């Protein structure tokens, strides 16, 4: 089976964010970019599925030249082929979903994995959007995945618990932490990845439905009060929470 995994190239979560001079995006200078953490679980699940039932794993990433860095890392983990859907534009989620869906259709892939959310724009809807375009089944925020024949049994996280889902391929699974333990790239994998060709396809520019008017830093909190340095400060803390903050 052909399996597609969608991967995103995002700022490391340990990075500080500064706003660029256009006040619409972040300033990417000096920022370390990594494979979107949730996508690592998606890659691992795609590779495990391939190892179990055979087939090929294709990675797709949408973005600019820099995304190749992430695609190389993904190839090093054991993905067979990588495709860059190239654009320098800042596309909104629907435009990205349409481009990803078109390529998944091109690849004729019936099983697609991606992270449940990209830690840049945090929309957590990409898998659902692509599934709706393609008419595929969707399991979002999956914490377990089992495929036998064309039948899927998966668990997904919901508020305060889990749902166990039964569905069939074609399907998109969005990966939550806990789905698996992502592998590290082997030295052999890293060497092999260097030689692989990343196919590039230009994304037709499209009109965004959502426009960013401005991006700002969150308002800075005023410095708080250190109530004390040991348990003797507890009564005063409780008084403040009850009388000043009125939250308990």
């Amino acid at each position, binding site marked *: 089976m052909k399996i597609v995994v969608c991967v995103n190239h995002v700022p490391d979560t340990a990075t500080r964010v500064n706003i660029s001079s256009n006040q619409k995006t972040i300033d990417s200078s000096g920022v370390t970019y990594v494979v979107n953490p949730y996508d690592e679980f998606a890659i691992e699940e795609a590779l495990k599925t391939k190892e179990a039932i055979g087939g090929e794993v294709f990675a797709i990433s949408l973005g600019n030249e820099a995304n190749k860095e992430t695609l190389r890392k993904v190839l090093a983990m054991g993905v067979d082929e990588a495709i860059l859907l190239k654009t320098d534009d800042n596309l909104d989620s629907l435009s990205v979903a349409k481009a990803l869906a078109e390529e998944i259709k091109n690849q004729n892939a019936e099983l697609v994995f991606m992270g449940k959310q990209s830690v840049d724009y*945090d929309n957590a809807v990409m898998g659902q959007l692509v599934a709706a375009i393609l008419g595929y089944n969707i399991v979002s925020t999956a914490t377990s995945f089992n495929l036998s024949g064309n039948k899927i049994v998966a668990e997904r996280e919901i508020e305060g618990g889990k749902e166990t889902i039964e569905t069939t391929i074609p399907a998109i699974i969005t990966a939550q932490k806990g789905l698996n333990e992502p592998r590290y790239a082997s030295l052999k994998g890293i060497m092999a990845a260097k030689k692989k060709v990343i196919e590039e396809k230009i994304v037709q520019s499209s009109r965004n439905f959502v426009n960013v*008017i401005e991006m700002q830093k969150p308002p800075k909190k005023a410095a708080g009060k250190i109530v004390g340095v040991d348990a003797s400060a507890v009564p005063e803390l409780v008084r403040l929470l009850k009388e000043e903050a009125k939250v308990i």
Partner: protein
Amino acid sequence: MANKFLIYVEQRDGNIKKSSFEALKKGSDLAKTMNAEIEAVIIGNEVNNLENIGGYGVNKITHLKNAELLNYSVSAYCELFVKFAEESDANYILLANTSMGKDLAPALAIKLNCALVVDCTAIEIQNGNLIATKPVYAGKAITVVETNTPKSIFTLRPNVFTIGQPSEDKADVTVKNIDSVNLSNKVIKVTKAEGKLDVAEANIIVSGGRGLKAAENFKMIEELAAQLGAATGASRAAVDAGWRPHSDQVGQTGKTVSPNLYIAVGISGAIQHLAGMQSSKFIVAINKDKDAPIFGVADYGIAGDAFEVVPALIEELKK
């Protein structure tokens, strides 16, 4: 074109979620200001006290009902919701940004080929249009966005929009029995963490971090949480150490939360954790290291040993 709002009301186990009351209230406030029509829809089997949504300013709701809709199914719910929203022809559609809302809203956005703004923390009217505030990078930055399609869908972050005291008004409920539902995606089991509040929906959260040193020490965090009616959270360090489940993790690779009160115990405040909780209304930090970054965002702090302070806090609250 006259404006019309549609609010999706979410139920689990026949009970309406608090986050849906927030969406109803926000929707009705906006509709009032814009002099727009408003209606709501709910999908499920039996639902308790549905007419009470009138208290939040929405007096018309359609209940799409079938015994097979007892549990959420993405295929069944999406199909029904999309069809209803198309027929309603509302141009502003509001949902809570919950695990269910995040499935339904994108399905509708594709069907209507319209703008979708998720996880909004504010929505305002500007020149007759809705302008939304949406945090990005887990709250390290905030965007203000506008939509440019005839219809737009917004999902609202739980716990951010206030509901106030509901009025005594009752809504007109129209029950529409559904003949058959699409169960190509079927929930065969729902496992609830026993008596557990989810951090994303809690008013108060007590979180523990590396400073707690071991899994068993989270017992005092749970005790403190129980005393406050709070959910328990954890830092990434505590989750990575295997002390707590990932569903408890607060931060950029966990959940972004905005409770009324966030108590951080033994959490130093790595940037990825701060990003996920700094929009909490009040923050209390308990940490031995007085220079820990967590104190930079805390309203109140005790720079002392958590193993002394937390038990004292539990005792004080029992008084």
